[in-house]
């Protein structure tokens, strides 16, 4: 039971991350107008690496590669979310809030403008929209929502170090929204559920113990490839990559 609660908390945290990334990637498609499609990806990965070295070097703040241990669970007044069940509740509340915020944004006129930017940015500019502002706004909102996930993650795991924030972690979240379906809030959540639970279920498949861990990774990869082959638009998404 505790194990399931643990998994549910992780799913919640990653669903918040996926939702916020989906806002930025799924809806606007792209970053600042000076960048084109390909450069967008390169620039954001570059940024990821820059931030990683900041974490590594700003030792007064992050303690560098030693990481920050012993992060406490959040407290409200005198109530502490110290047991996992109450923490799951907290995570669920935040997930719901984030989901509502995302849905509100994407279904508002602002969200429609974002979708239009994704489809044809120039056309929208001709109509007099300042597309750069739209994109910046949604990026900031996305980053803000992602920070909620970060705060929950740090206080749940109680330890973070720079290696928690490598490029592979970003790719993991990106795969979650691609698997769930780009530009779909429900898709982002479903993607996070599948990507977190699948490898955990694979712990129980009973591979021979000598190769269990490697087989688990391989099967996980194969399942993802198969899913993308048969549903290139993601589980509930509308758009193919």
């Amino acid at each position, binding site marked *: *039971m*505790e*194990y399931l609660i*643990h*998994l549910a908390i*992780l799913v919640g945290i990653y669903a918040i991350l996926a939702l916020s990334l989906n806002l930025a990637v799924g809806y606007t498609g792209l970053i600042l107008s000076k960048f084109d499609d390909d450069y967008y990806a390169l620039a954001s990965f570059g940024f990821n690496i820059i931030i990683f*070295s900041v974490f*590594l*070097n700003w*030792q007064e703040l992050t303690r*560098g*590669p*030693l*990481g920050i*241990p*012993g992060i406490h669970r959040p407290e409200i007044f005198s109530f502490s979310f110290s*047991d996992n069940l109450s923490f799951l509740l907290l995570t669920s509340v935040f997930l719901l809030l984030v989901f509502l915020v995302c849905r509100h944004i994407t279904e508002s006129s602002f969200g429609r403008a974002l979708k239009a930017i994704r489809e044809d940015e120039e056309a929208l500019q001709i109509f007099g929209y300042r597309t750069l502002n739209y994109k910046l706004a949604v990026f900031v909102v996305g980053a803000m929502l992602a920070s909620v996930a970060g705060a929950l*993650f740090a206080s749940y*795991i*109680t*330890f*973070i*170090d720079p*290696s*928690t924030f490598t490029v592979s972690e970003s790719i993991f979240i990106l795969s979650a929204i691609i698997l769930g379906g780009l530009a*779909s809030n*429900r898709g982002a959540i*479903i993607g996070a559920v*599948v990507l977190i*639970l*699948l490898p*955990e*279920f694979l*712990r*129980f*498949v*009973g591979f021979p*113990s000598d190769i*269990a*861990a*490697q087989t*688990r*990774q391989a099967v996980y990869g194969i399942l993802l490839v198969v899913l993308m082959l048969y*549903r290139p638009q993601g*589980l*509930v998404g*509308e758009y193919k990559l």
Partner: protein
Amino acid sequence: MEPEAGNGNGSSVVKTVIWLVVLILIVGGLVVYGNKGGEKKEVVKEPIKIGVMVPLTGDAAVYGEPARNIYSIAVEEINADGGIDGRPIELVIEDSKCNGKDATSAAQKLINVDKVQVIIGGFCSGESIAATPVATEAKVALFSPGSSSPDLTGISPYFFRNYPSDASQGKILAEVAYGKGWKTVGLLQEQTDYALGINKTFSATFEALGGKLVKEETTSSNTDFRSQLTKLKSAKADAIFIDTQTPALSERIFKQMQDLKWTPALIINDATAGDTKTIAAYATLLEGGITAEFGVDTANPKFQHLLSAYTAKYGGTELPYQSYGQTEYDAVYMLKDAIASVGYNGEKIAGWSRTVKDWEGASGNITIEASGDRAGGHAAKVIKGGKVELLNS
């Protein structure tokens, strides 16, 4: 318009997802059921389960693979010898991938699904730090044979380790260096938790003694150290402390020191000192250099036995990362003694760990302090003629 289309599309997909989950549950259930059936037939006495967390995939798998092999060797030996009071040991191995998230998942699974009372692991310090709260809450003992971060000292009454903290190494090095009359030491440190941990205690001890430090940092992937070396050279330090995580990096630094024709007195940590090839290759440069090693004692019969057993079982390969191998091997045997004397109970095993004194194992005499740390561990050494020797006086 869009939401409607999405709904129609979505419900069929939701069905598919549900079917997928159901399928996984059925397959998983069958496997679990099948395993249970098998156990009843084969094993008369219920095995004692020991959880294991090691990084088996990812960059740290190079350490995790031999660790898992050593655990199985030790368990096979114990089981062949009658197990613990006639009950065999069964290892439940989970991949913790050298990060906090997967370590907590693995610990949760071991504790709540497999109901283990004791876990050997984690290997990386990040794994142990993240898994300790989980183990503490469940009153399960967490026994790490590889984590060396000073942050783990006294972290929980349920955590203990038989691998010494990096703090002990930094302290010894600083004392020896200052005792040699080196008042100014230049420091070239790799940016990893291990190297930084050593550096922190080294710096604190050395400055408390009255020494002066000049510090330069480098990333693990760096290949050109000329600018750092030139800076250190101009600082006119009495000695240079090369504080790296892997011998490969030290080797690159030594090579460039030779190119610069600069031969200062050197201090190196055990990561480099443990690599006999590097020490031999740069014998003249390193002559008279000091180091502190939690070294392997090749004269120890238990260690020799581990080496030959590993080579015999794993097709002629020599045991890699021997300083970890010895503590991993000891960990299983220590738990055997613990369970035999206090029973299979996490709280009691953790309590037992604090009473360990001069336990003789492959890694020498083990004494666990009240903080859960291994006492002593590192010994000051000196490099002479391409070999690492104990420092006398």
